[in-house]
């Protein structure tokens, strides 16, 4: 009766569900097995913002990263795992509750070392189960959180230092306190709309004593300003109720960013590093009396360099006189801060340092290039090899097999690497093609040439990869008319139709028809040319900081129409959207036609449609004007009108859009919080979350041959979704079917070597490979939970040749068949024979997938094909398969012979007077191994092993059997005949054979073991 009840429930419930259409589906209910594949790389890793150690378990290390989320190590920093993938990946601070460090973790989002390319945060998160589940507990508009401190005597008392918005005014800044574990917050210290809390510290012996540094700072797209009259160092002795400036001994005048450190072994000793106007007054200050007075100790370059980027100070927990300061190289003092020397050789730009909880010789250091460990007090540094935090600005693809991915990284040069590699994509598979901050890297469509751009076109390398030759081809000024203005991330572009054509954007569009050897300017100044945004030499505030990263009023994106090379789109960082329809003779600025767009919003990307020359998409990014809205528009009339395709489903400001190459309604959008997909031209967007972190997606490309969607993320490296073609078919009609089968693409039988490196990769990130198996894809409108469901593979004659475990998900299911047939049945011996595990590959030809779901059957045909790029002929494979099959049959005949013989021996074994027993045992010893083990105790191989070995040798070869193989085959054939002629007389002599009740050969072979 319960059965009846359950069945009724199952029958009725579906009618209560909503019908499937693209408007109501959530991504998790649709994308199913379409899963992101991470390929790193991790060899250069990426920027680290904050390191946190467990207070009592020295094996636990957390890394809060600038763009790649939170990672946890449980082995003292050898390898790390991500624990925060579903949330904002830009991390300011990670803090463990000292009273419950195994379970309670706080993550403040929004990185705090405020370079131009920083991402944004979206609040404070708390986990009470060691990072498995997270809840946001406030500070939605905080932009960036610098510090979180939990009272070591009271878990409910939490202090948060909010640095706040970088790009505009905000009152959600300063020091906050909660007395109820984060449920409610009180703002304790607030100065003004541009001054935030840069650092916060608590006296370890007295939780009422707090120190806070407040910092006035502001960035625009074209400038940075650090410091002002509101920057100050404060102290509270009453749990934050009252705050007093403690500047006795400080330099006078405006201050900039101040770091704070308390010596844990003597909390009266404080250090601060001061950014001040007067160079001689900058640097490290120390107080011996809890901040009542200060003395300047050091103003070396390593201590004063770029305060906005490096102001972390860390004191050895066991020695108040050992102090480490972040910086270009990182500096360590062992004399209380008087003198410093550099930390050991590692990636430059050191942001945080953590001393091991028991042994100060062991240190962890966070840099622009990942986490380093030191076992000798910072002298020798070794990199953590499994943190794929690479921060791509851009990626591009080539048409090689497998295709390569090209791109440039924040502070980590430019690279290319394969989308698959034997054994997985390892660090050694990546090739360096540029230095400094790398941005756009492009592969020439037909020649072995790579272009790679660095930092404001300081270099645009043209690399001849065949001959390892390098030259630079950046356009230089040809006259005195105008200084060329290049963006830090200078756009370079190729023509989709003319392989040697190459574009570079300054404020002008430069075009070369000879791969950059000669240049022609084909536009007027396409920017606003606003002189107020061109004073970069004044940028930085108290500390001048003119790195080139703030260059503005420049071209940022270039797109030639794939359908008409006279149509070129250009977008500028100051908000223009320019188009020419005559190859640059005349230009039209169409931005005035874009509705509801704030003035001068950065034109981040223009996507020229592959379907129509007048159609394009433009993505604007307003975040440098403190506007976090996504702006995406489409035109179908060369920009005469633009229509927004943004909906509320999109989270985060957007940087890039990719149009599908087949279905014009299928679009992929990269935002600061991940990947969004629309299948109806932008009416609804679904977030893609299958193994896809909420990471900033800076650039997306779609491979035309594989249909792989490839993303350059700014914090998690290159992420690929293999073959997005099922999304092209998902119309509302198909979504309303119970089951829909997608076409199964012809699958090339892989004959290639899979010898991978795998040496030294134990603690290294290795990127996953795509599957090369037959991909069976189908859509289910409801998860299959009750009743039978199976998939079998049949050959052209309808014979079953394999089985596949079906996927049961609601949404897209992808299951694979590895086109391996069952191995032969081998004779039972004392040990196993490894050759007998060889599963031969199915022959090329037509096959059918038959899915049975309840009482319904669904079928889909597909082809297995040979790799026509290999030198072998179809006749070679046929001969291989023919001989394999003969050996397969030989093995099974022997198995049946031994099966009979074993039964006969068993029958006789109690009979001591048996004359035939010795003969039978003697024969058996020549057929199979009857002694030894599976390893170094292995016995001499017998007939079974010899057959299996040759079978394996031939079946796993790419080639037809060799002459020697056939000699060996003839020998085995002869031995098998001899065995048969020994066995048959014994069988005849064996009177009781019919009493043994043996299976016939066919049913014997049919059993699976």
């Amino acid at each position, binding site marked *: 009766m319960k*059965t009846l009840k359950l069945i009724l429930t199952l029958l009725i*419930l579906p009618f209560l569900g909503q019908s499937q259409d693209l408007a109501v589906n959530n991504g998790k209910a649709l994308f199913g097995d379409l899963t992101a594949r991470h390929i790193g790389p991790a060899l250069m890793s990426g920027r680290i913002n904050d390191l946190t150690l467990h207070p009592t378990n020295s094996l636990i290390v957390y890394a809060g990263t600038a763009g790649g989320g939170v990672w946890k190590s449980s082995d003292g920093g050898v390898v790390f795992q991500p624990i925060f993938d579903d949330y904002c990946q830009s991390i300011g601070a990670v803090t463990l509750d000292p009273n419950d460090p195994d379970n309670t973790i706080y993550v403040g989002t929004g990185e705090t070392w405020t370079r131009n390319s920083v991402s944004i945060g979206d609040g404070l998160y708390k986990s009470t189960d060691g990072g498995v589940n997270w809840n946001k507990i406030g500070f939605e508009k905080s932009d960036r959180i610098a510090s979180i401190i939990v009272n070591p005597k009271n878990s409910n008392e939490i202090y948060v230092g909010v640095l706040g918005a970088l790009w505009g005014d905000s009152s959600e800044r300063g020091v906050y306190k909660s007395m109820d574990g984060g449920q409610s917050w009180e703002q304790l210290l607030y100065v003004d709309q541009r001054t935030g809390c840069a650092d916060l510290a608590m006296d370890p012996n007295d939780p009422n004593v707090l120190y806070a540094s407040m910092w006035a700072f502001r960035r625009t797209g074209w400038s940075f300003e650090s410091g002002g009259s509101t920057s100050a160092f404060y102290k509270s002795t009453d749990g934050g109720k009252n705050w007093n400036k403690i500047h006795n001994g400080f330099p006078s005048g405006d201050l900039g960013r101040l770091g704070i450190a308390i010596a844990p072994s003597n909390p009266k000793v404080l250090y601060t590093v001061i950014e001040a106007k007067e160079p001689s007054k900058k640097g490290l200050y120390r107080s011996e009396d809890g901040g009542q007075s200060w003395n300047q100790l050091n103003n070396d370059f390593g201590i004063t360099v770029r305060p906005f980027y490096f102001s972390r100070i860390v004191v050895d927990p066991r020695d108040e006189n050992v102090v480490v300061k972040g910086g270009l190289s990182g500096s360590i003092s062992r004399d209380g801060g008087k003198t410093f020397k550099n930390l050991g050789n590692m990636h430059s730009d050191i942001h945080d340092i953590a001393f091991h909880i028991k042994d100060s010789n062991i240190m962890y250091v966070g840099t622009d290039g990942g986490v380093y460990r030191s076992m000798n007090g910072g002298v020798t540094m070794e990199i953590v090899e499994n943190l794929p935090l690479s921060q791509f600005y851009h990626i591009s693809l080539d048409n090689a097999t497998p295709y390569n991915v090209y791109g440039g990284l924040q502070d980590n040069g430019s690279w290319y690497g394969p989308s698959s590699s034997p054994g997985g994509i390892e660090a050694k598979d990546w090739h360096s093609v540029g230095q400094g901050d790398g941005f756009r890297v492009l592969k020439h469509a037909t020649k072995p040439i790579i272009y790679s751009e660095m930092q404001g076109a300081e270099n645009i390398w043209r690399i001849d990869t065949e001959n390892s030759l390098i030259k630079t081809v950046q356009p230089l000024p040809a006259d005195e008319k105008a200084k060329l203005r290049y963006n830090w991330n200078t756009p370079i572009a190729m023509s989709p139709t003319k392989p040697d054509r190459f574009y570079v954007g300054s404020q002008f569009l430069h075009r070369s028809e000879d791969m950059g050897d000669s240049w022609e300017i084909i536009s007027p100044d396409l920017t606003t040319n606003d002189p107020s945004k061109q004073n970069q030499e004044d940028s930085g505030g108290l500390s001048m900081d003119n790195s080139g990263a703030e260059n503005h009023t420049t071209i940022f994106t270039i797109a030639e129409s794939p359908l008409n090379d006279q149509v070129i789109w250009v977008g500028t960082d100051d908000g223009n959207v320019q188009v020419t329809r005559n190859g640059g003779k005349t230009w039209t600025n169409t931005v005035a036609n874009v509705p509801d767009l704030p003035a001068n919003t950065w034109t981040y990307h223009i996507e020229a449609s592959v379907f129509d020359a007048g159609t394009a998409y433009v993505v604007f990014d307003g975040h440098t004007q403190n506007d976090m809205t996504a702006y995406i528009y489409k035109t179908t009339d060369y920009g005469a009108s633009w229509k927004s395709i943004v909906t509320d489903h999109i989270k985060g400001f957007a940087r890039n859009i990719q149009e599908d190459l087949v279905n014009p309604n299928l679009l992929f959008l990269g935002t600061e919080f991940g990947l969004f997909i629309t299948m109806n031209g932008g009416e609804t967007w679904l977030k893609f979350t299958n193994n896809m972190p909420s990471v900033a997606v800076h650039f997306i490309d779609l491979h035309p041959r594989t249909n792989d969607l490839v993303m350059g993320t700014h914090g998690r490296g290159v992420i690929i979704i293999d073959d997005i073609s099922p999304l092209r078919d998902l119309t509302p009609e198909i979504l309303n079917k119970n089951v829909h089968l997608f076409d199964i693409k012809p699958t090339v039988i892989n004959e290639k070597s899979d010898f991978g490196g795998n040496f030294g990769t134990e603690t290294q990130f290795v990127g996953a490979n795509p599957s090369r198996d037959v991909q069976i894809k189908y859509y289910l409108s409801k*998860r299959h939970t009750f009743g039978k469901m199976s998939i079998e593979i049949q050959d052209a004659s309808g014979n079953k040749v*394999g089985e596949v475990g079906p996927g049961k*998900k609601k949404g897209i299911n992808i299951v694979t068949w590895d086109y391996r047939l069952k191995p032969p049945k081998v004779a039972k011996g004392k040990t*196993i024979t490894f050759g007998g595990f060889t599963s031969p590959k199915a022959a090329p030809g037509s096959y059918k997938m038959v899915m049975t779901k309840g009482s319904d059957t669904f079928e889909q045909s597909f082809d297995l094909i040979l790799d026509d790029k290999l030198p072998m002929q179809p006749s070679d494979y046929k001969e291989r398969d023919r001989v394999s099959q003969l050996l397969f049959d030989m093995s099974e005949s022997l198995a049946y012979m031994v099966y009979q013989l074993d039964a006969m021996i068993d029958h006789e074994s109690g009979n001591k007077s048996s004359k035939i027993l010795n003969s039978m045992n003697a024969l058996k010893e020549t057929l199979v191994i009857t002694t030894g083990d599976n390893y170094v105790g292995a016995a001499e191989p017998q007939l079974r092993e010899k057959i299996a070995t040759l079978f394996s040798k031939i079946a796993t070869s790419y080639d037809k059997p060799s002459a020697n193989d056939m000699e060996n085959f003839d020998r085995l054939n002869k031995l098998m005949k001899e065995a048969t002629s020994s066995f048959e007389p014994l069988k005849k002599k064996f009177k009781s054979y019919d009493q043994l009740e043996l299976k016939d050969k066919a049913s014997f072979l049919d059993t699976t073991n």
Partner: protein
Amino acid sequence: MSYFSKFITLIALAITLSNYGQTADEIIDAYHENIGGIDKLKAINGIKLTLKINQGGMELPIEVIELKDGRQMTKITFQGQEIMQGVYDGTTLWSTNFMTMQAEKSDAEALENFKLGLNDFMDDFIDYKDKGYTVEMLGVETIDGTEAYKIKLIKEPMTVEGQLVDDVNFYYFDKDNYVPIAVHTEVKEGPAKGMMAESTMSDYQEVDGIYFPFSMSQGVKDQGAQPVTVVSIELNPEVTDDMFTFPDSMKTDGGK
């Protein structure tokens, strides 16, 4: 309560639960009820599962026996050889070493952790309070494309590399019919340590009045999974002691 009214109740629950007023206990009760009732589950003394997995074209038959008294074994057969895994005879936990084909004992920590599961015969949730377990309703999440109640189950602490750690499992119960469709557990040892292991269950079918999943998959979340097909299930199978006993020939002086 008539079957009809009970049926209506179930439907109503399925609707109201989207606002989730439902407690973990109500979901667990509905699950037990829907698969056949807790009394039937408790009445079972043993279960034998015949499974198959497919590896590179090779179909591996697997036989699993679990008894209420704690004894259990897994037997994999290929090339006529029987490989025993995770066999427990009431004292010793052992497996066949693949190289020597001989029985070897599991390490002490594995044995102690294994013993913690002896009270979970048939189902973690049977009498979970008596076992000292705690459950917590975490809300509704989409898993395998469908909405499910996520329930956190904490069992006895286990020992990992010498340290006591909580044994935390996240069960996902299908919102439509309350049967578990997935379980997540953090991997605690080995190269995948820190990743989330994912098991899924489907193809529920009835055996002697109780519903069992006849298809499972096991893997690491988002990294692919190995499907396992249940060929047959036999309740209260006939067993003999020698199916579980650690072979005398392998006993050493140090351990009996």
